[in-house]
């Protein structure tokens, strides 16, 4: 799933400086599941903004709403009536939802309330770990199902580097967390699967043109397009 983290309140206030009528728009899909931008969190942000405005003696008309999915036209239509009443929308959806909102309501000022950060997996309740880089050229078939593109700090296709020690990466995560060495995991998994021959194969340089180095990507399913 797509995960996101709420921007610092101060940054949100800066984005909304001088705005008097604001709608906080949550999304009930990925950002709700990662407890960042669902209806609950949208309501909390709206309350925070309201309290802050009252403290500052400012007038602020703030309310919240949530779309089932902010990244789909139909679900944006479903909240259109409410959105139409506000000149400014601060969206708690992922970057896709925020842009969909901006495109669907071109006359509105649509601002982000979250930082979309990764394609992560809920490892346990309230913990998400990056699992996919959406690189457009999946190598999981030869790496024991462990992604070296995002799980190796250096995206090595032929690892591990010399910094692998006791199963850990030389890099410490942004929150000071220990990072397992992806290539130690790949190594162990391939051996456990009896596929160690794959460890001796050199995976050639990656075709990054299938990632966004090739420019923004579009996917079309001709067979499914409306007739």
């Amino acid at each position, binding site marked *: 799933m797509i995960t996101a983290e709420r921007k610092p309140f101060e940054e949100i206030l800066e984005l909304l400086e001088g705005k008097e009528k604001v709608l906080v728009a949550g999304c009930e899909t990925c950002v709700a599941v990662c407890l960042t931008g669902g209806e609950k969190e949208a309501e909390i942000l709206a309350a925070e903004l309201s309290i802050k405005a009252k403290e500052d003696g400012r007038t602020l008309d703030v309310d919240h709403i949530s779309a089932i999915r902010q990244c789909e036209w139909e679900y944006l239509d479903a909240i259109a009536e409410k959105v139409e009443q506000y000149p400014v929308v601060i969206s708690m959806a992922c970057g896709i939802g925020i842009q969909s909102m901006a495109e669907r309501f071109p006359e509105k000022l649509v601002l982000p309330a979250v930082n979309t950060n990764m394609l992560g997996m809920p490892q346990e309740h309230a913990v998400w770990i990056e699992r996919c880089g959406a690189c457009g050229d999946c190598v999981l078939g030869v790496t024991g199902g462990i992604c070296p593109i995002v799980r190796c*700090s*250096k*995206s*090595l*296709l*032929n*690892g*591990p*580097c*010399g*910094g*692998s*020690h*006791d*199963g*850990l990466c*030389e*890099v*410490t995560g942004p929150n000071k967390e220990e990072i397992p*060495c992806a290539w*130690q995991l790949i*190594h*162990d998994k391939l051996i456990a699967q009896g596929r160690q021959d794959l*460890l*001796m194969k*050199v995976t*050639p*340089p*990656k075709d*990054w043109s299938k990632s966004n180095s090739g420019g923004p990507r579009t996917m079309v399913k001709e067979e499914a397009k409306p007739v």
Partner: protein
Amino acid sequence: MSDNGLKAGSNLERMFAAGHFVVTGECGPPKSADYDIVAEKAKALASCTDAVNITDNQTAVVRIASMAAGYIAAQNGAEPIMQMTCRDRNRLAMQADILGANALGVYNILCLTGDHISFGNHPTAKGVHDIDSVNLIRMYKDMRDAKIFQCGEEMPVAPKLYIGCAENPFGDPFEFRTLRLKKKIEAGADFVQTQCIFNVPKFKKWMEMVRAEGLHQEIKIMAGITPIKGAGMARYMQKFVPGIDVPQEIVERIAAKEKGAPQQEEGKKLGAEMIKDLAEVEGVHGVHIMAVEWEPAVPEIAEMAGLLPRPKLS
């Protein structure tokens, strides 16, 4: 290939070809546009080594480019081994830089993954990692031997390259370290410099595995040595530098001496002893002395280890 069967004809390659026990040093370029610092370091190392590594934004800190510093080293009598990391350049820049370096007379290249960008002085920069070190070796080999760019396009004048790689015998998974070296040899590496060795028994065990695979006959192996300047440094490396294995008895041996000059003397003595010990290991073809910000110690250590004077090739 060059006429004489050599790939690049550099002093480093010719020293190996002549069967000498080879000595390389290391020069870290400064964090400023200071020609003289590079020149001084190069001069200090020129007489006691056969070639000098020029680090590439070492520990992810911006410094004089390894190509330029390598050129300066060459002007000052030291044959450069230009280091190239995958962290700061994509494949275009890597190929462009090697063509440029080669045109300027830099023939030895060391292909590295590079320390992670988060360790350096620009931790918010984007780490490139377009290709990894194994593919970097392959790309340079193809440029040299097949006269082709990574994309497959041909070039009229191929670079003359003597291609090196690094390996860490103390990294994990231990038994895979020899196999990864094998992959690098297959990709095209001509020589390997190891991570600095403090745990000699473990290194010897690694060399046993290297010999079991016959790799010592396919690649020139240089054992990495870092002289210890004091007990503080030893403890720091032991605790905080990942991939470096400093046994407790080494820390204790240095710490037993008084701080300052006596510890430094002991560090040099230890370095020289280790070199003598490692030189006896079958399959070790040379030593790479990395005296981090302590280049003046290298001539003394080389002297103590009986490596001087360096043979002159005609």
